């Protein structure tokens, strides 16, 4: 009865390249995509810009043109515009959550 050496197809522990944390194994490409999607970053940047520019810009744009120097109405308009930005942000944040939930449902249906 001939003896056969057991030839293991699996790599031994020392031969394996293992991942440590987020660093990839040798030969694999590392994942450098940002953790936050680009669309979310663009939304946040747009709202930051709007929060800085819209209220004070609407004040100076309307104080001498639309309201003819009545700075009270222009100031009230600036406050209203600031709240409009806030409402827009809340709506976008709610939609963000809903679209994520729908995406989760779609992946569950696909399985």
């Amino acid at each position, binding site marked *: 009865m001939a003896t056969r050496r057991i030839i293991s197809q699996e790599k031994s522990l020392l031969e394996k390249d293992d991942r440590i944390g987020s660093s990839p194994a040798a030969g694999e490409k590392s994942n450098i995509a940002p953790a936050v999607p680009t669309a*979310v970053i663009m939304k946040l940047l747009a709202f930051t810009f709007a*929060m800085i520019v819209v209220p004070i810009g609407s004040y100076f744009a309307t104080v001498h043109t639309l309201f003819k120097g009545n*700075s009270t109405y222009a100031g009230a308009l*600036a406050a209203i515009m600031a709240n409009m*930005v806030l409402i827009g*942000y809340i709506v976008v944040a709610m939609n963000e959550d809903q679209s994520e939930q729908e995406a989760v449902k779609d992946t569950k249906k696909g399985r």
Partner: protein
Amino acid sequence: MAESELSPKFAPFIGMGGIAAAMIFGSIGAAYGTAKAGIGIAGVATFRPDLIMKCLIPVVMSGIIAVYALVVSVLIAQDLAPPSSGTNYSLFNGFMHLACGLSVGLTGLAAGYCIGIVGDKGVRAYMLQSRIFVGMVLILIFGEVLGLYGLIVALILNTKSKG
């Protein structure tokens, strides 16, 4: 500008104090709200990074407090002019601008304090129970409205300078 009993030399000093009070106290409130809500976001986002977008709402509201203070400061600053230009800045205007600045500044401080605490505890509770979101936003809006009342009073007061 002739100095008179109704428009003494020190009247602009009091008006400038109003501008400073609006901006300083409003920014203290907005800074407290942003910092405290930011601590809450840092606590929540380590466990649920997908909630960051909604948890930023208190931070945006704190920013609005600073916008209120900015609007009132710009309004008051437009009524001020150097004495060499021949304008007559009365003591009444000075005290009125001080009242404008203090009302919007200190209500902004109150609103920022409220938004900070509600934002911190609210987003931490939202991480565990998603139904609390509507209640959190409503409480935040009621806190925000405190600053809006101060702005309304300041705007109405500011119309009296052109009597």
